[in-house]
């Protein structure tokens, strides 16, 4: 079965600094990888996805992610963090029609 892992429960960065939220995957076949963000008392919002093509995927709110097949990683990045980026981030992989999520990483951006 497909799965993802988010090795960090919490990531803290200062506003204006670059941020990285890590995700590794385990799949058989071609991976379909996604990043979602969850703000308090709100549903998950889609950020970006990797299906095929360029390894660097650009998404909403200035986020991007790099697909690395040799390292089986799909890390989420942003060049300059904002306080408003503070939220819970989930990496996910499609397993047929199912979406398998990681446990989430809480990002805190401090002013």
């Amino acid at each position, binding site marked *: 079965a497909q799965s993802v892992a988010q090795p960090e429960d919490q990531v803290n960065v200062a506003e204006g600094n670059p941020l990285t939220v890590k995700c590794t995957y385990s799949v058989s076949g071609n991976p379909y990888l996604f990043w979602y963000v969850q703000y308090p008392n*709100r*549903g998950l919002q*889609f950020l970006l996805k990797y*299906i095929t093509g360029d390894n660097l995927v650009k998404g909403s709110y200035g986020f991007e992610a790099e697909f690395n097949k040799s390292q089986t990683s799909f890390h989420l990045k942003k060049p300059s963090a904002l306080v408003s980026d503070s939220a819970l981030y989930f990496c996910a992989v*499609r397993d*047929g029609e199912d*979406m398998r*999520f990681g*446990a989430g990483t809480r990002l805190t951006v401090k002013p």
Partner: protein
Amino acid sequence: GAGVSQTPSNKVTEKGKYVELRCDPISGHTALYWYRQSLGQGPEFLIYFQGTGAADDSGLPNDRFFAVRPEGSVSTLKIQRTERGDSAVYLCASGAGGPGNEQFFGPGTRLTVL
């Protein structure tokens, strides 16, 4: 346009009671998914509908859980004889279907079983 909506937003019930949770998907989306999210964890797949039929119900934890989508739009998740361990946020998502397409999530229903 309108997103996925879920009602109620919060539901408190007593152990042993029956509950129904409703999901209104985005208009035109043929695929509908239910997930359960416990505190500190990622969403866990429960069931997937393509149209009116449950194409994959392998995530339902036991036979107390059941879901329907009779007209291919609104879906209801039904839980019989609720247990305290059923307490969680139940998320609904809809989409075009297919592994390359994203799912659009509702705000969830927070179920608390006392």
